[in-house]
Structure formats: C-alpha cells, structure tokens
C-alpha cells in the first residue's frame, strides 16, 4: 500500500514538474545542444553544406590572438566597471539613506538611466558627445574647454564612465533596498557607544550588506562580461580590436566573417572560463545569508 502511494506520489511530482521541465529543455538544454553541435561543425555562411569537424574550431580559436585579446579587454572592463559601480552605488545609497532635501525627485531622476535600453543609450551618447553637434562638448566649449571624448586615449575611460552612468543606479537600488532592512536601533546603539558614522558603516553596515554586495558583484560582473550594445555602437570594437569585447568578437565572427562554427566555439569557451566562478559565488552568497 505504502509502495503504491510512493509510486503515485513520484508520478504526480513528475507530472506537476513536467511543464517546468519541458520549458527548461526547450529554452536551455536544446539551445546548449545546438550550440555545442555547431561548435563542432564547419558551419560557414558562404557554404550551405554543414559538416562535422571535430575540435577544429576550438583549435583555431585557442590559437587566435584576437580572441584572447578580447577576453583580456572584457575582463579588465568588467572588473574596473564592477568595482566602480559597487563603490559609487554604495555611496549613493548611503546618501539617500539619510534625509536628503528633494529625495523623492532625486530618487526618480537617479533611476532614469537603468530604464533606458543600452543600445538606445549608445545612440544618445553618439549624439550628446559628438564634437560637432553634441551638447556635452558644446557645454565645455562655453568655458573654452576643448574635449575630444572619442580620441583613442580617452576611449577606455569614456566607455567605463558611460557604463557607470547607466548601471550605478542599479547597484544603488540594490544597496538602498538592503539599507532599509538595517534597524535604526543598530545606528542608535553604535552612536551611544561613541562610534562615528564612518565606523558604523565600516563595522556594522557593510557586514550586514554582504549578501547584497555579493549579488551586486555577481550581477554586474556577469553583465560586464556580456557587454556588447554600447561599445559596439560607439566603437565597433575599434580602433582595430582595441575595445573589442568577447561579445563583439563572437558577433563579428558569426556575422562579419560568416563563421558560425567558430563563433559557437568561442561562446562555449567563454562559458567554460566563467563556469568555475559560479559555484564559488553561490557558496559565498549562501554563506552570507546564513550569517
């Protein structure tokens, strides 16, 4: 009797889980399988015949200095952008956590950039920062300051700055939400004990915000790795490959060179390079939650 019940329960659980499993298979397992199969094929736009080619694409990819250069640029960009967004978002959240005049309106204003699609932001930047018709160079021109924001020397800091303009509001929002959970009593107790505001933030607030910090690092770093829209629209990855992210490398390999097999192999290698970090981040996250 018990065995029958257990069997029925198991069957029921499979039936109940089936919509999710089908969804999972269709949207995750199948694309991964197709991506892997493409990466093992000679699949070129110029030739409609597709043949299996073993690890040929992986060998070509690992020997391509442009691929490694794009990985190096992507990691550098993601680390610097994530670090800045972490610090700036946290500082902004601390400011808004106190009673700032006009907080309600400022809060809405600060959040505007994350509501705009990155590709649209990029098009806006092209107009706003254009030396000849842009409002930003025109503003500096009022003070006889000449700015050439797209010159090769200014390009990397500019791209970091633009990424921060769009995503500091996101990190700010996460930190601000977490700060609302810090009880006022803790601040009061710290104050009674003679702790300064800076010490309170360092010794009490930051430890309490560890889960949020890990989430911010995880989300922004992964987003940084996937960065494509703004850089592609503003620089196309150039001059040369100077600002080529791995996303741009994959896109160009597929759609400029028409080599879908190599592009798929690059995607697989990127996933494999990032995969080891994921368990570590999840572990840190769960440890922080337990604390």
């Amino acid at each position: 009797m018990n065995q029958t019940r257990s069997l029925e329960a198991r069957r029921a659980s499979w039936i109940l889980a089936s919509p999710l499993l089908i969804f999972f298979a269709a949207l995750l397992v199948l694309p991964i399988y197709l991506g892997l199969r493409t990466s093992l094929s000679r699949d070129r736009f110029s030739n409609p015949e597709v043949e299996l080619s073993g690890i040929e694409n992986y060998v070509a990819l690992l020997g391509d200095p442009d691929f490694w250069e794009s990985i190096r640029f992507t990691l550098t960009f993601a680390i610097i952008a994530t670090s800045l967004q972490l610090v700036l978002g946290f500082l902004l959240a601390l400011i808004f956590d106190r009673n700032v005049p006009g907080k309600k309106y400022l809060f809405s204003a600060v959040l505007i950039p994350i509501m705009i699609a990155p590709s649209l932001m990029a098009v806006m930047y092209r107009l706003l920062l254009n030396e000849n018709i842009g409002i930003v160079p025109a503003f500096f021109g009022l003070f006889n300051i000449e700015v050439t924001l797209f010159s090769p020397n200014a390009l990397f800091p500019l791209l970091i700055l633009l990424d921060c303009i769009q995503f500091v509001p996101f990190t700010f929002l996460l930190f601000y939400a977490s700060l609302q959970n810090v009880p006022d009593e803790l601040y009061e107790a710290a104050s009674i004990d003679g702790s300064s505001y800076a010490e309170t933030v360092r010794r009490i607030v930051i430890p309490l915000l560890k889960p949020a910090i890990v989430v911010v690092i995880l989300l922004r770093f992964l987003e940084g790795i996937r960065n494509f829209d703004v850089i592609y629209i503003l620089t196309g990855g150039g001059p040369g490959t100077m600002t080529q992210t791995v996303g741009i490398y994959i896109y160009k390999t597929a759609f400029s060179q028409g080599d879908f097999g190599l592009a798929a192999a690059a995607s697989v290698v990127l996933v494999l390079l990032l995969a080891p970090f994921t368990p570590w981040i999840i572990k840190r996250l769960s440890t922080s939650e337990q604390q």
Partner: protein
Amino acid sequence: MKSKRIIATAAMAATAAMMMAGCATEATEVAETSQVPQAEMTKISMVLWPGPEGEAMQKIVDSYNAKQGLIDGVEVEQVLLSRADTFSKQATLMRSESDEYDIYFTASYLIAQHAPYLTPMQNFDASIYMKSSVESLQVDGDQFGVPLDTSLHFMYYRNDLVATLSEPANATKYSAIAQEVLGKALSPNLETSTWNWDDALATAAFFTQKYNPESPTKYGYALPAKNLLFNTMIWNDILWGLGGNWLDSSGKPDISSDAGIQAIEIYSTIYEKGLTSPDSAQWEYAETNAALTSGNAMMALQWNAAYSELSTTGETAGKIAIAPPPGSGPRTHVHALAVAQNKFSANPEASQKWLSYLATEEAMAIYAANGGVPSMPGILSGMVSTNASFANLIEYANEIGYSRPKVAREFDIYSSLAEELSPAWIGLMSASEAAAAADEAMTGLLD
C-alpha cells in the same frame, strides 16, 4: 446597468456595420480593377532596411498593391529591419533555409555570399541599368537581384573657401603651410577635378586652424576612420587612385604594395597632423556629415547619398561642391543595393512577378521621385534639376568607377581590412605592420 448594455450593443452593431461597409467599398474597388479574385491573391513579404531606401520602396509597394498587383494576383508587404543589422538577421534566416521572407535585401559586396540562398533573375533587361551596377550583382554569369540604389563616393568641399585660395596672400600662406605639413612648397590648385592627394592634404592643412588660425573651419578634413567596413570602402578609393589593388596579378593579397602603404599613410597624415578631429577615430557617415554641416570641417571623401543633406543644411547649404576622389584612373568604389528572391520562398512565381515589376522604369521612376537613387541613367539624368549630384553620379560610375576583385568573401574582406587597418589610419600602428596584417587576414579569407 441595462442602459449600459444597450449602449454597448448598439456601439458594437454600429462598429460592425461600419467595418462591413468598409469591406464592401474595398471589395467593389477590387472587383472593378482586378483580374485576379481576392481569394487567389498571393501575399509575399520583402525585407529592406529603414531610411530613404525603405521609404521610397514603400511608395512602389503601395502603387503596385493598388494597381499592377491586382492584375498579377500578388500583394507585397515590406518589412523594415534595423539599418545596422539587417544583414545579420538575414544571415540567420538564410542559413536556416527560412521561408519567412520571399524577397531579401542584398548588395554588391554581399552578393557572392548570398547567392547560394537566392534564385537568379529571369527575363531581366540589363540595358536600362548602369552597366557597373548590373555587373556587380552577377555571380558565375547569373544575375541575382534587381539593382536599386547605386552608391559611390564624391570629394565634397566648400567651394566658397577653395575660391579664396586664388588670393595672392593666401597662395603664399598656402605654400608655407604645405611646406610645414607635407615638406613640400606647393601652390594652390583651384582645379579640384585634377587634385592629387598632395593638393587635397595641402588644402586641408590650409583650412585647419592649427596651421592657419584665420581659417573659418577648425579642421580641413573630416576623416571617417572608425573600424567599419563602409569606411574601408572609402579608404579603397585612395588605394585604387594610387594604382593599388587588393590583389596582385597572381591573385595574392597586395595591401603591402607601395600604393597600399602610401594610402594608409595619407590617412595617418590627416589624423596625426591634426587636419581632422581626434574624435574622427570613431567617425562614420553621420559624424562626417555633422563635421561638414556644422562648419567645423572643410572637405571629406563621402558617399553620394550625403549630397541632399550637405547641399541644404547648415554651413554647407549652397556652398558644397563635388570633385572626383583625388588620384588617377578608376578610383571610386561603386556598389548597388538590390533585392533578390529567396531560394526557399514558398511563393516563387509571385516573387518573380513582383521583381519583374520592380525592374521596370515605371517602378524606378516612383523610387527616384521619393528619394531613391535608382541605377537607371535614363531616370537619373531626367532628375538632375532636382538633385545636381545625379549628373556626377552617372559620370563617375561610368568613367572612374573601379571593379573590385571577384572574391566570394568580399564582405568579410572589407570587415577584416577595417579591423587591421583602422589602428594605422590613426597612427596607433605603422603602415607596414598594418598592411602585413591585412594581407595575412585576406589570405585566410581567399582560401
């Protein structure tokens, strides 16, 4: 409550009556003009990109659907994808042998790659088109697609400023500036159609405030130097104008030739000597136009499509003139945009009917009247009064348009050249290093 229901029912009845009346009117019109019953009409879809081409094409589509389409039994729907990534989206559709669209958008520089996924044209009258445009859409002797716009390059310059070079004081200053920038004491050449690149660079230097603080323009030149395949097409004009080519006589990559190195150095001179803005490292079509119309730059090698804007906007309105790209021999890139039938179309007969109509002077006259630049000299010459650049377009396409080597991966080569050469264009790499890298990249793409 009851009254609300009555009002709602009455409104629905009225709406239904209006819709039925509308259908009845439409049906009456169809019955009057069509030779094909509505039920037997075939609907086909065609991809184009947004912008002047898409807008002009929509007028032809509307006209066709209202008249000839009713006789052919074909209704055309135009789908405008993104200007930047139409070809990427199409690549995935072609690769998956999709029949989502019956007609694809293509271009001379893509036709060899698209050909395996397209059906050749039948009964195509090439005689009414520019020869260079028709030939640029042929692969292995087959005609793939109906040519639409023909694109090439002009050297645009401010004629009001170049005219001032005839003043003796300016001629002396010009010579001194040429000596400083190019190491040669040159005299102004007012005959812009005979310019070589020394003339162009010396004139650009003269109208750069760094060398001539009295220059009305900050920079003499607007250089589109972004890593972009369309910018490579412009740079190619210099290469060809100096007698260079992508390949040598044995079919090997030849960017490292003297002409190739010199062509790269002309760009790097413009950039490093400050004849263009430092920002031009990321410029393309729109930024180049902005530099000219804002009055910040004096000249640029730019697409013929820019004429409408340059001749009517900002500081260049009424002051812009056209010259051939400096150099000698065939030296302006020419390509044609086109539409062609998807090999996997579910409606091949209807698609051919539409394409046949599109290849008529009647259709292209509508296209030209609405902002298109059709590849039909007969139509363009009749419209010179509305767009003076059409005369130059016909002349340059016939006389100085160059023919690119017929290679299957032409599009990839353009992209690759942009990637390898763009650092050298702005002095981040030596010309010889970049040329060698370009040759190596091309070798891989010619295999």
